[in-house]
């Protein structure tokens, strides 16, 4: 397949607010269930092992008109919960049998309660992962939580999830994560061959489709992109942080690239990069999942950093590793976790002499001129003087 075809397929899926793929997947076989999840992490292996399709629900983007969602949120709350409610109220996710609301922040947390009241017939779970990273404390707690999730899913589907089911899923997702890491490495190496506006939709589509299908797609994309002859431009290399939850509109990503930046690292929709190493397949699979989360997961604003002086170290290391020349800290407006983190992360960047800029966006931002201006000046400044 050609790059353009792959990208088109992904972009169509990404823009499809009716989730046709998931609907068709569900309809294809009697008894199939779809379990939705919000940013920023969900144990997809468990959902997959239950025979369900994990479906990433990441807000409504800039193409959805939000009417009822706004009725539930004050103006000083970010966009993602409103568009998620709009998806619910307008019946666009009426086929979803279960919903997982991860631990991201108080907004998502409270959204889980709204969902319970609005859709009492949908199985829903607020999934509180540990903020204590001691294997014998947080690890034990998390293993039991995973076990409870497993039981919840078993009730939803009416069938047992065996340890082997989970092990099989773990290896599929291990492969997925490995391939995702490869795409990221490929982009970091030759960003002109894998523009972020493409990589982004490739990743987003992956959170809405069967994992094996996505694995194939990732391989196809890399092969096709490597073969494509694209000119290298006089752009600077930057990393983007702060965008882990509410996603920016695709136009914003394009605007940043247009303004002279190659994005070589980002924290967009982290899910498939949340666990940074392969989860061991042998042994107690639930325990393995729990331990991987405890010991090998990314650092992001919704996780506590237990050690003094560690804050921001992770970001600095990532920037160095991917060879970024600067950081754009781009956060959704009113996103407390990211905005409260910003001063700490940025001071770590300053200490490491990494230039950065920061701005805010909303998933439905329409005006790109200020974005271009800021990203453009940033690119200018790196280009002209470093």
């Amino acid at each position, binding site marked *: 397949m050609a790059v353009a075809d792959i990208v088109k397929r992904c972009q169509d899926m990404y823009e499809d607010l009716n989730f046709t793929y998931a609907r068709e997947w569900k309809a294809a076989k009697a008894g199939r269930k779809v379990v939705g999840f919000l940013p920023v992490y969900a144990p997809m292996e468990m959902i997959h092992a239950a025979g369900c399709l994990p479906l990433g629900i990441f807000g409504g983007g800039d193409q959805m008109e939000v009417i*009822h969602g*706004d*009725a539930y949120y004050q103006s000083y709350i970010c966009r993602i919960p409103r568009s998620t409610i709009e998806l619910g109220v307008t019946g666009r996710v009426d086929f979803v049998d279960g919903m997982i609301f991860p631990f991201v922040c108080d907004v998502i947390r409270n959204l889980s309660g709204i969902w319970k009241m609005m859709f009492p017939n949908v199985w829903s779970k607020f999934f509180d992962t540990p903020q204590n990273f001691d294997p014998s404390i947080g690890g034990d707690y998390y293993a039991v939580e995973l076990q409870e999730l497993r039981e919840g899913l078993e009730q939803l589907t009416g069938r047992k999830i065996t340890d082997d089911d989970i092990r099989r899923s773990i290896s599929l997702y291990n492969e997925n994560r490995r391939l995702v890491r490869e795409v990221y490495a490929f982009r970091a190496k030759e960003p002109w061959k894998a523009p972020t506006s493409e990589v982004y939709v490739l990743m987003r589509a992956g959170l809405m489709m069967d994992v094996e299908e996505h694995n194939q797609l990732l391989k196809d994309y890399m092969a096709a992109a490597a073969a494509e002859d694209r000119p290298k431009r006089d752009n600077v290399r930057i990393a983007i942080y702060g965008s882990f939850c509410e996603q920016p509109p695709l136009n914003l990503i394009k605007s940043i690239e247009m303004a002279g930046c190659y994005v070589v690292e980002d924290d967009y929709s982290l899910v498939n990069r949340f666990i940074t190493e392969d989860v061991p397949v042998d042994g107690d699979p639930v325990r393995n999942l729990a331990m991987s989360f405890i010991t090998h997961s990314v650092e992001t604003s919704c996780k506590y950093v237990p050690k003094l002086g560690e804050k921001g170290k992770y970001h600095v290391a990532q920037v160095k590793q991917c060879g970024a020349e600067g950081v754009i800290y781009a956060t959704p407006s009113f996103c407390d976790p990211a905005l409260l983190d910003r001063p700490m992360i940025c001071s770590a960047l300053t200490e490491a002499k990494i230039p950065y800029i920061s701005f805010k966006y909303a998933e439905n931002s*329409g*005006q790109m001129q200020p974005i271009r201006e800021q990203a453009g000046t940033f690119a200018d400044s790196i280009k002209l003087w470093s």
Partner: protein
Amino acid sequence: MRCFIGIDLGSTTTKAVVMDENTQVLGRGITNSRSNYDTAAAVSKQEALIDTRLTLFRRALGGVPEVAGKIDEIISDLERNFRHVQFLEQLGDLEETCVKNIKGPRFAGKEKGVQETLAEVFKRLRAGSDQLFAVGGKRKSDFFRDLAGSDFMTVGEAVCKDAGLGFDMILNVYDKSIIEVENRPPSGDMEGKFIRALEKGQMANNLIAKPVQDALAIPLEETYVVGTGYGRVRLPFPKEHIRSEILCHGLGAHMMYPETRTVLDIGGQDTKGIQVDPVGIVENFQMNDRCAAGCGRYLGYIADEMNMGLHELGPLAMNSTKQVRINSTCTVFAGAELRDRLALGEKREDILAGLHRAIILRAMSILSRAGGVKDQFTFTGGVAKNEAAVRELRKLIKENYGDVQININPDSIYTGALGGATFAVRAVVN
């Protein structure tokens, strides 16, 4: 006769309604809200009383068999002439004020030239006013500021060019003076003006003079006044004469359409969704929060940006063939958004259509917050005059709430004042 008056002091316009004790509307008056709330209230009240006189004339003429079938014509003739007299009076005031304001260093040594230019401008304005108030003449607005202002710009720029004088200077004098003039309530003497209007008219004076004069002689007693609206706390009224605008809008809508259950009001700075019960009592309401995005003022900014009158926005948007999606309804950035889109090559009417939809989408959210839309639904406030906004609203109501009867009254801008007047009647009569 006993008059009951409701005054709605809005952020953009101030409205007054005069009622008799049977809750029959006698007159309506409107003016733009200005820095001086007392004046705004006084002017709107005066306007409503003028309108009341017209109603009384109409009633009186009903008793003159010779004019049967021509009453509408006569009344509109009378009103037109009355407005013309009033306009000339205010124009005179403006000119005087302008001349007084030619002072300060920026005019040093140029006083004479400026004065002469001004005289020429006003001469032309006066001459032009005949056409403005001719039968079938189209006026951009009912407010002196808008009428005088737009002509002043075009005429002034031309005169200055001829005179080789910088337009900025004249503009500056005008800007200063118009405020002063606006904040001076037009002189009373309604009767005198009506007489003069009568004289100007082409109608058979002898036939109607008597009944008109009789109607003019009826004393209008201000029995009870109720104030409401955004600026109500600034009205010099005792507390029991003040009612919340929510209650007034609810009751006003009920008075116009007793079957109304849901009311939407889009004013200059706020949007309200109100649910009323079968007797006009408010059951629930929601307003926009502290952000004024998507309110009427938004259209004002757009109109300014496009150099158009508010009246013209709707019709232009109706010409759209392809709506542009606009996501931000921030009033302040509306202009920027507009320019952004124009720069991308979108057509003005398509962008405007998108902007209107954006406003209505916001209103839909507030309605949703207030508990949705029930049959019948009444749309009030200044924006209800805008056909493009109304079109989008109709579409969205149908999509979201099905077939609901939608009421829009040409006098819907007076809804709050109507409710206020009703409260006034009740305070005395019940």
